[in-house]
C-alpha cells in the first residue's frame, strides 16, 4: 500500500494541479511558490497516510461512529485526494503567511523612509499649496489697501506692514520650487507681488487715502488681482 502511494503518478499529478491552481492566485503567488517548493510531493501523501493511521490506529477504528470509520480508508483508496489535502494544508499555511500583514522589506519597518524623488515631489506639492495660500493672503492685503483708499485706513499700517513681512518670509521658502517649469507663471506673479510687499513692509505710518488710491490704480494697471485669481485657479486644479 505504502509503495503504491510513493509511486502514485496520479497523486503527484493531483498535487501539481493544486500547485498550478494556487499559483494563479495573484495575492499569494510568490509565497505559495516558496511553500510549494519546500514540499516533497513524492512522499507527502504517504506521510499523511502514515500519520493518519498512527494517530487513529485500531482504537479509532473500533470507537468511531460507523459513519466516520471509513475516512482513513478513503485516503488509502484515493491517493489523489491525499495529494489534494496536502496541497490545501500547504496553501492554507502560505495564505496565512501572505495575509497576516503586508509584505514589506523588514529593514525599513521601524524607520522613516522616503526617496529623494518623493521628497522633491512632496516639496512641490507643499509649494503648490503654500503658493495658493500666499496668493490668497496677498489678495487680502491688496484688497485692504483698496478699501482703505475708499474709506480710510481699515487695518493699522503697522499691522499691514507686519503682514507684508510675513508674506515676504513665506515667499523665501517658495522660491526653490517656484523655479520649476510647472510653477513658472506663479513665480512671475509672486515676484511682482514680493516687490510690492517689500515696500509695504517698510511703511509703518498711515498712508493718506489719496496715496492709497494711487497704489490701487497701480495694482489695477498691472491687473495684479486678476492675475492672482487666474494663477490660483491653475494651482487649485493641481497644475
Amino acid at each position, binding site marked *: 500500500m505504502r509503495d503504491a502511494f510513493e509511486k502514485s503518478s496520479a497523486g503527484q499529478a493531483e498535487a501539481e494541479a493544486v500547485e498550478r491552481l494556487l499559483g494563479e492566485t*495573484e495575492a499569494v*503567488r*510568490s509565497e505559495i511558490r516558496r511553500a510549494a517548493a519546500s514540499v516533497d510531493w513524492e512522499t507527502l501523501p504517504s506521510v499523511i497516510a502514515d500519520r493518519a493511521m498512527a494517530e487513529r490506529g485500531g482504537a479509532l477504528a473500533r470507537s468511531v461512529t460507523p459513519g466516520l470509520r471509513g475516512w482513513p480508508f478513503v485516503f488509502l483508496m484515493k491517493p489523489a485526494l491525499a495529494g489534494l489535502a496536502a496541497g490545501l494544508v500547504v496553501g492554507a499555511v502560505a495564505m496565512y503567511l501572505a495575509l497576516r*500583514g*503586508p*509584505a*514589506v*522589506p523588514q529593514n*525599513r*519597518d521601524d*524607520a*522613516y*523612509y*522616503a*526617496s*529623494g524623488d*518623493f*521628497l522633491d*515631489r*512632496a*516639496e*512641490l*506639492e*507643499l509649494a503648490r*499649496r*503654500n503658493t495658493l*495660500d500666499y496668493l490668497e493672503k496677498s489678495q487680502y492685503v491688496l484688497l485692504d489697501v483698496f478699501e482703505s483708499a475708499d474709506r480710510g485706513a481699515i487695518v493699522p499700517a503697522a499691522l499691514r*506692514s507686519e503682514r507684508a*513681512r510675513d508674506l*515676504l*518670509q*513665506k515667499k*523665501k*521658502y517658495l*522660491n*526653490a520650487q517656484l523655479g520649476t517649469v510647472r510653477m513658472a507663471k506663479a513665480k512671475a506673479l509672486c*515676484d511682482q507681488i514680493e*516687490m*510690492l510687499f*517689500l*515696500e*509695504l*513692509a*517698510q*511703511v509703518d505710518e498711515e*498712508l493718506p487715502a489719496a*496715496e*492709497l488710491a*494711487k*497704489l490701487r490704480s*497701480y495694482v489695477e*494697471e498691472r491687473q495684479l488681482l486678476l492675475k492672482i485669481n487666474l494663477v490660483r485657479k491653475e494651482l487649485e486644479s493641481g497644475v
Partner: protein
Amino acid sequence: MRKASLVILLALVLGGVPAAALRGGVQAATDESLFREVKLLVFDKSWPAALDKIDELIEKFPSSPLAGQALFYKGECLSGLGGREKEALKAYKSYIRLEDAKPSLVEESEGSIIDLAFDLYEGGNSSALEDIESRLGHANKVVRYYAAYKLSFVSDKKEAAKAAPVLERIVETEKDPELLDRARIALLRVSPERLMSAEQRAPRTGTTARMLRIRIRAAGEREPAFEINIPFALADLALGALDEEDKAALRKKGYDINRILNELSRSKERILRIAGDDGSVIEIWID
C-alpha cells in the same frame, strides 16, 4: 507720463521716505529722486538701469543715508542679473552692517545671503557654505530656520546633516504648520532617524507619532516599485505627492485623498488595499 506718475507714487506710497525728508533741500530732493527711480526700476526688474542709478546715487551723494539704503537694492539688482553672486553677497553684507539698516530689509538681506551662498556652493565654491552654517545660530529665528532649511538641500549629506539640530527644534516647538511641514521634510531628507526621535519626544497629537506607510507594487512583482514610511502628520501631503499615474489609478477606483484619509482613520482594518486595473496594488496603512 505713466512712468512719471509711478515714480511719484512709489516715492510717496512705497518709498518709505519720511515726509520731513521730502520737504528737505535741493540735495535731498535729488538723492531722493534718484532713489525713487532706483526703486521703480527694481520694481520693473530693470536691473542694469537700476544699477546705473545706484552707482550715480552713491557717486554723487556718498554721504546721503539713501546711498547706504541703496546697497540693499544693489544686492537685488546683482542677484537678479545672475553671474554676479559674489558682488551681490558683498552688497547685502555691506547693507546689514549699516547702523540705520531697516529690520525688514536686514531680514531680507540675510535670506538673500543664504540663497546666494547656496548657489555659489552648488557652483563649486565650497567655502561659500560658511555663510549658511554661520547663520544656524543666528539670533533671529527667521534667519536661523531658513539657513537650516536651505542647508538641508546641500548635496553633501555630511554638510546637510549640520542642519538637523535646528530642524529638530522646529519640529519640537514650532506652531506654524507650514514651517513645521517644511522642517519635517527637510529632516526626513538629512536624517530620518532624528525626525523620528523628534516626533516621539514632542508628539502633538495621538496620531503625530504614528507612521504612514505606502507601498505600490507593479502587477506580479513582490518588491514594491514605490515605498515610503513617513510621519502620519505628512499623510495628506504624501498622498498629494504621489505619482500622477498612481493618483489617476486611485481616482479611477473612486478614491481621493480625503476618502483615503477618512477610511484610514475610521477603519478598524489596518490596511487599505487598492488594486489597479493593470494588476498593480497600492497598499496604505498606519502603524
